[in-house]
């Protein structure tokens, strides 16, 4: 019995490796997609290693004697109005911004998947009720809805994640519901129903895998949107509270010193733009691979 299980496991691993090789063969044809993937991996690595890479403490190392200093060998990106090292703040800001965006998109996808699966699979009044709630939530422009939620919840990191998750969950729910509707009447689903498969098993084991391709593409896109949304919220003072660095609130600090210290504004902006660019390129590449009709 054990031998059979080990063999099956090895077969599965072999299949996975084979699938990954096939994926890479097609995906790597598009050089821009590979470039996007490289940017995203680089930014995530930087975010993880930020505490080790940052030469100064982004919050505690205040040096009033070195306020608004030009970029130099000691301070690669210069310093801000408190003499804090911008390079260290941008690195730690990457960690904060990426953590918020990844958490928000993961939570919203999880909520959206459950709502979309239930709504699409059960149909009738369940679908009507859930989709009218989703329609209601989608009638607000995302960033304004997030601002309204932040106004009600108060600004801290946890609340930004909650606000962005609530904003993006309906979009995932709609996407998943659409895919479920196109799959649920297929013969193989009916066959499993006839064989006595439970609803949960059908939903999560047989229908959900069909939603994964569009979901993956959408998650990459919303990851980029979430980074922009977090930066926007922090920029207007409703995001990550000071002195904790995030790309948005470093930009907010730099706004008052645009003429004498443009580096405070330029570097975090470049970080946001490059990350979003990488995610867009990666998203385009995934779309071409997973949904060739969209090419």
């Amino acid at each position, binding site marked *: 019995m054990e031998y059979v299980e080990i063999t099956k496991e090895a077969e599965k691993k072999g299949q996975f490796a084979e699938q990954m090789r096939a994926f890479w063969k097609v995906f790597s044809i598009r050089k821009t997609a590979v470039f996007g993937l490289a940017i995203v991996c680089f930014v995530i690595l930087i975010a993880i290693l930020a505490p080790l890479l940052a030469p100064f403490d982004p919050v505690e190392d205040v040096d009033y004697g070195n306020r608004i200093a030009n970029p130099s060998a000691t301070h690669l990106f210069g310093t801000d109005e408190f003499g804090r090292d911008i390079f260290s703040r941008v690195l730690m800001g990457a960690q904060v911004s990426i953590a918020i965006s990844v958490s928000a998109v993961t939570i919203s996808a999880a909520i959206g998947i459950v709502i979309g699966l239930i709504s699409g699979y059960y149909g009738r009044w369940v679908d009507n009720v859930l989709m009218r709630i989703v329609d209601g939530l989608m*009638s607000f*422009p*995302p960033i304004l809805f997030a*601002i309204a939620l932040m106004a009600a919840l108060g600004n801290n990191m946890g609340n930004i994640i909650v606000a962005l998750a609530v904003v993006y969950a309906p979009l995932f729910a709609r996407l998943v519901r659409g895919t479920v509707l196109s799959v649920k009447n297929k013969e193989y689903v009916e066959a499993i129903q006839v064989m006595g498969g439970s609803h949960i098993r059908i939903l999560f084991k047989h229908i959900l895998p069909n939603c994964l391709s569009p979901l993956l593409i959408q998650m990459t896109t919303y990851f980029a949107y979430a980074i922009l949304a977090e930066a926007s919220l922090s920029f207007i003072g409703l995001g990550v509270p000071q002195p904790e660095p995030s790309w948005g609130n470093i930009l907010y600090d*730099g706004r008052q010193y645009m003429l004498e210290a443009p580096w405070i504004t330029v570097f975090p902006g470049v970080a946001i*733009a490059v990350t979003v660019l990488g995610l867009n*390129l990666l998203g385009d590449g995934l779309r071409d691979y997973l949904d060739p009709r969209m090419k």
Partner: protein
Amino acid sequence: MLSGDLGHSLVSDKEVLTLLWERLPATMALIMYALLISVVIAIPLGIISAVRHNTRWDYGAMLIALIGVSVPNFWAGLLLIMTFSLHLGWFPSTGYVDVTQNLWKHLEHLALPAFALGFLQAGIVTRMTRSSMLEVLKQDYICTIRAKGGTEKVVILKHALKNSMIPIITIIGINFGLLLGGTVVVETIFSIPGIGQLLVQSVFNRDYPVIQGVILCVAVIYVLISLVVDLLYAYFDPKIDYNEG
């Protein structure tokens, strides 16, 4: 609320509806100019990109579009202020003049914020115009028009572009929400007295009736725009008839 009474501001004691009426013109002007800038940039870029598919023109246009999609509008706004206001002194960095007071000053004050806001939308619309035009240019009827001796100008502008408009209008409509959201940040940077700035001020003042009023107003505008988009479908594609049972 259903009778149109949105209450009073907790800070200024003014009626919320009055506050919205005072602030709405600046926001709508900003959005309209941003939309105009985005369409003026995006449609020609998208057409060039599709017609010169897989050439340097295409790559160049797509690079501009990609930068547009990736650059946050508030950062674009700050860079524009740094370059065109603080260094070159061509445009005012902040403030707003109503169109009825001085048209030139009005345009001068809204040029940078409208560009900061419209550039993102331009990126999205360019990409959609390109893919939609590519799709249409492959159709048989385009070959027929060419075979009948239709000039390239007629093929592209009269036939291909018109038939590509439905997805383009859809994406403009969907992203109208992005523009509305973008106004919050852009109005804050450029100190434009619109509903975006009103919302941010109200959030900091915990002025809940105003927050509620602004969100409701924006949602109504958003839904109305979706309706306009639906109605425009019938204009661009006569096969769509809303009177049909």
